[in-house]
């Protein structure tokens, strides 16, 4: 088989795709009047907001593209357009090869059919030949790992189980392009891991995959390139780490706006409960400012607090959020302001550092009321973190060392030898 180099023609190519939902015609009164006046294109509907706006995207053979974005950002619409389910209103597109859209999993299943019969049905819907599917049935059955549920009606399945059938058919259908929408949300850890492994296998065998997910962990392990969709536009198209960072910033800005709207109610701000926070600095152990934080070293976060006369006490808090908006640290400490004006600098000191990974974190400090319900004042800051020369893949990057220690007693024996010993012992 000829494996084309990655620079070759893209398998999926979208140019300036715009998609409005609904029929692009409107036969209502005003347009009818226009038509009677003999205006051309009278019934053309002018839509308010496009679901996709000027999307240009190319995906090459053997690529696993990640798609992230908020709900309603246009991720599923993008898959619908690529799969040909939904027609774009403007733009040009080309998709070459056989495509299997797993936009959602339970499409067209009959709950009274058994798992096996539904696999056959899905195969018929997706134009996978009868022989192909019979030949791979054993493989699919094993992949689903449903045990004897495989031959029982789907209506008896628990909620996570039908999705397995769809995914199994999709990845065994010999399609050139597979579109996957949030499959990792279903199934238990063992099944998710099998899915991940299968997707890697498909990618490595030259298939093209587009994966929509809210699971940043999965996106970052599977995809080398990821796009961020926001309000129907591609806002970021590049390396996954950058995409996750961008998406995190986007979410952070969104959350910040919401916090401002919902938590800081200016109606409460009388003179007596005036509280301010300013002058945030990120310092190291020698009280020098750090433009880039080393997570292994002492971290001091210093900020100034003013609390007006009348506020007895408050909760000083600090929050650190990872680039993918995951909350890493949130600490609250009750601070007594005594009963007069309070004007001091507060310092949060992490003597052993915070085991953060490389990337732009978000740091928030501030004062909550004593019940922790109302933000009296808060201040946000970005914090760039750089771990020295190693890249952590987990949630945190703790301090550790790897030693080469002394020689163990004996060596592992080859398998055959071990078996022989076991037989001897049994005999």
């Amino acid at each position, binding site marked *: 088989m000829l494996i084309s180099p990655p620079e070759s023609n893209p398998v999926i190519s979208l140019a300036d*795709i715009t998609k409005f939902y*609904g029929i*692009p015609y409107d036969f209502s009164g005003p347009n009818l009047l226009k038509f009677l006046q003999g205006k051309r294109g009278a019934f053309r509907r002018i839509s308010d907001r496009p679901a996709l706006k000027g999307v240009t995207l190319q995906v090459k053979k053997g690529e696993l593209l990640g798609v992230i974005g908020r709900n309603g950002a246009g991720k599923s619409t993008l898959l*619908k357009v690529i799969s040909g*389910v939904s027609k774009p209103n403007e733009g040009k*597109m080309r998709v070459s090869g056989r495509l299997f859209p797993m936009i959602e999993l339970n*499409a067209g299943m009959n709950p009274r059919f058994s798992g096996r019969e539904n696999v056959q049905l899905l195969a018929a819907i997706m134009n996978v030949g009868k022989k192909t599917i019979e030949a791979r049935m054993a493989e699919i059955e094993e992949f689903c790992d449903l045990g004897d549920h495989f031959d029982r009606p789907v209506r008896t399945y628990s909620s996570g189980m039908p999705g397995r059938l769809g995914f199994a058919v999709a990845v065994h259908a010999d399609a050139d392009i597979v579109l996957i929408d949030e499959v990792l949300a279903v199934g238990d850890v063992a099944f998710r891991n099998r899915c991940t492994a299968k997707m890697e296998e498909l990618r490595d065998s030259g298939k093209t995959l587009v994966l929509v997910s809210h699971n940043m962990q999965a996106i970052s392990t599977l995809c080398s390139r990821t796009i961020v969709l926001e309000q129907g536009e591609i806002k970021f198209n590049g390396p996954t780490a950058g995409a996750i960072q961008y998406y995190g910033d986007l979410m952070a800005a969104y959350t910040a706006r919401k916090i401002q709207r919902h938590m800081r109610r200016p109606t409460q701000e009388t003179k007596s409960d005036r509280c301010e926070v300013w002058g945030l600095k990120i310092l190291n152990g020698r009280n020098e400012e750090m433009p880039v934080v080393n997570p292994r070293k002492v971290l001091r976060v210093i900020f100034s607090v003013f609390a007006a006369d009348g506020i007895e006490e408050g909760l000083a808090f600090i929050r650190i959020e990872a680039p993918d908006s995951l909350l890493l640290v949130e600490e609250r400490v009750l601070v007594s302001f005594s009963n007069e004006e309070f004007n001091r600098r507060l310092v949060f000191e992490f003597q052993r550092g915070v085991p953060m990974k490389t990337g732009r974190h978000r740091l928030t400090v501030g004062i909550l009321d004593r019940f922790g319900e109302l933000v009296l004042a808060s201040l946000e800051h970005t914090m760039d973190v750089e771990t020295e020369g190693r890249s952590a893949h987990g949630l945190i990057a703790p301090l550790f060392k790897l030693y080469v220690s002394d020689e163990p007693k004996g060596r592992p024996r080859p398998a055959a030898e071990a078996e022989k010993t076991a037989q001897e012992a049994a005999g």
Partner: protein
Amino acid sequence: MERQRAKTPAPMPKSASADFGYMASLIFALAKRDLTAQYRDAAFGIVWAILKPTLFMMVFSLLKGIMRLPSEGAPYPLFSFTGVALWLLFVSVMQGTTPSIIRNAGIIRKMPTPRIVFPLSGLTISLSEFAFAMIPLAALVVYFDYPVDWHALYLIPIALITAAAAFALALPIATISVFKNDLMLALPFLLQAGLFLSPILYPLSSVPENYRAIYALNPMVGPLEGARSALLLRQEPDWLLFIPTFAMIAVALPLSLWVYHRVSRYFADFF
């Protein structure tokens, strides 16, 4: 900036023959799914396809005991069963096709399948149910020891004509129902009215002479009368009565197929 109109993507099979094979197997798979959904959990299963026209025939035979219903010399159960079987084919096409798009919303939303397979799978189910209804019809012929000849074979083309006419009527209703479901709500009433306004319980000859021309505009008159004259009178069907039926197939069917083709691209936007 100049923008080009998008071409409808054609992601599915390349060759026409492969396309046909795919569509045929898909129609079959969907029909099998829906038939199973209907009958698997019913105690009598597929026997219901036989029971339905039989029960109708029994009710009509009871009616016959109350009022005067002519049957042109044939035993009334045989007379009414022939009409009921054909009428139920019409009803079944109407009721099976109109919700077929909404019933398959799950697939339409996600899979780039040819859209025409959904109404066609409904049509397939209706025709197979009609085939089952031929079993009790044959039983009645044997029971009454009624003489039939080769004219009975006309039942096959007449059934296909009936199905085509019903499909021509059902397809636009199905299309419109995706957006506004008024017609689907009106359908049960229209079908009940049709049961009495078609020559099922009675022959066309019992309709008063001066109303007969208007009455015969009903596209079911031709097939019903034709089926009975072929089976029971051993005669060539009166093709003149088929004019409204053929007109509907010739005009409404291509038109509704064209509209369906245009509009079905946007179905996915509505589910």
